[in-house]
């Protein structure tokens, strides 16, 4: 049976009579509108952290996506709000037998001075899985995003390694309705090169995009670490492929900075990099979504 789950979450600032704490960059954020249909559901704990950040866990009944599932979610982070969208565990995509693609279409809208952190666990595509994911972010020139997208080799403990049929991932970012960033990757076997043959040394493929002036300290930390020139005689490490590009966009004479980090490595090395991304965010998001997970 095909399942189609649709959902919407709007995060808005809580209006209170108390004066806004001068130190806090973001106002107390909470979900003001939640809609969902089977098999999709949201967990939005009231006390996920000590800060003003709102934590959202989209979950599906059954703990994974089966063949033909289609999930459609729209998130809207309103002005001065901060939200973390994460998961309790990895998103499992089961194998497909009838050649029907499993899909997730995610849309995010980020308003002025808001921060959206997408810090989910890896997508785990089981053997023969066929999965398509599209993420579209529409932010304003004053908005901020931290997106971390992870794909694992499969059920590593069972010896599964890149045996998926197809994984298509597209990421599109608009700033003030102008497209600025587009990345589409499509892993699939071709007659000349199998996904397993080319990727078997690695366990995690990670992509991280950071854009916005409120998160420029994170951009600086990552750029400093990963764009440092190699020393004489120093060779790259095959087991840790990691690269970074600076992003710079000019929208109506305003300059917006960011970075684009990608890594391909073992699970343990990947979590070291993930930690470097999450640590500078802790004062804002409160706790580490990857705590105790590896």
């Amino acid at each position, binding site marked *: 049976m095909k399942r189609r789950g649709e959902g919407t979450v709007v995060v808005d600032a809580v209006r209170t009579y108390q004066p806004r704490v001068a130190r806090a960059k973001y106002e107390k954020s909470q979900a003001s509108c939640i809609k969902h249909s089977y098999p999709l559901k949201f967990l939005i704990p009231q006390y996920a952290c000590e800060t003003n950040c709102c934590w959202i866990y989209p979950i599906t009944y059954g703990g994974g996506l089966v063949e033909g599932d289609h999930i459609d979610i729209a998130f809207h982070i309103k002005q001065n709000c901060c939200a973390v969208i994460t998961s309790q565990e990895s998103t499992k995509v089961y194998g497909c037998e009838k050649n029907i693609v499993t899909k997730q279409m995610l849309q995010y809208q980020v308003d002025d001075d808001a921060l959206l952190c997408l810090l989910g666990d890896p997508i785990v595509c089981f053997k023969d899985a066929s999965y398509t994911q599209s993420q579209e972010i529409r932010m304003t020139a004053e908005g901020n995003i931290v997106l971390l997208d992870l794909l694992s080799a499969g059920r590593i403990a069972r010896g599964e390694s890149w045996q998926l049929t197809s994984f298509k991932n597209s990421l599109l970012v608009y700033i003030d309705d102008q497209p600025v960033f587009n*990345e589409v990757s499509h892993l699939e076997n*071709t007659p*000349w*090169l199998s996904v397993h043959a080319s990727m078997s040394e690695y366990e995690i493929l990670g992509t991280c995009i950071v854009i916005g002036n409120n998160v420029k300290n994170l951009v600086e930390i990552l750029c400093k670490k990963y*764009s440092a020139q*190699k020393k*004489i005689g120093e060779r790259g490490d*095959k087991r840790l*492929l*990691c690269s970074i590009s600076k992003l710079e966009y000019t929208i109506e004479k305003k300059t917006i900075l960011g970075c684009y980090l990608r890594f391909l490595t073992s699970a343990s090395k990947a979590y070291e990099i993930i930690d470097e991304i999450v640590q500078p965010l802790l004062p804002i998001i409160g706790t580490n979504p990857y705590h105790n997970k590896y």
Partner: protein
Amino acid sequence: MNSLELLNLLQLSDSAFPIGSFSHSCGLESAVQHGLIKSKDDLRSVIIACLENTGSFSLPFVTEAYNKSWDSAEIQRLDNFHHISVSNHVANRASSKQGKSLLGTVVQVYQFDELITLSKHLQHCHYAVLFGVVFSVVGMDLKTTQTAFMSGVLRTIISSAVRLDQIGPIEAQKIQLDLLSIIPDIILRNDNKTSADASIKSPILDISQNSHDILFSKLFYS
């Protein structure tokens, strides 16, 4: 194809045509320095990955630019879309450099009015887009354009493998001859794609190329 067309094609796709592809290794140099190439088989797979990425990502831009070469607004849109689709700054710079040289050379050599106007409007001049436009304006058919594009990339990466001391010149020609046979299949699989479907097939080469700038010593520009 008559002999004049063939001669034209040979001139345009000759390595002496000054578009500067000899200074690019399509990410091979960084792959070598990252220890990704330990044997001849590794080299072969990296070249295949490069051809697959070219077919699934660049070829749709070549095809679409070829089909819309008369529409300068569409070419500008394609050029901008190509620009935002390559956030890997090393690949982006390599593409734009070669595209600018291709356009500059063709404008001076052939002096087509439409290319002169276009050169004033394009902001980034990405190679795949310009390649499609130039081959269409010169009067090549689409199949020839696609094949010449793929063959140019294969030649560039093979010749850089020789200069990086991975294989000897004779062995290089053997591998090139062997891999020529997969090009028609790659073109066929990506023939109906437009720029909206353009995607990267193998991220390994792209990620290692992306860190080209931090290598201590390098022979190539990308």
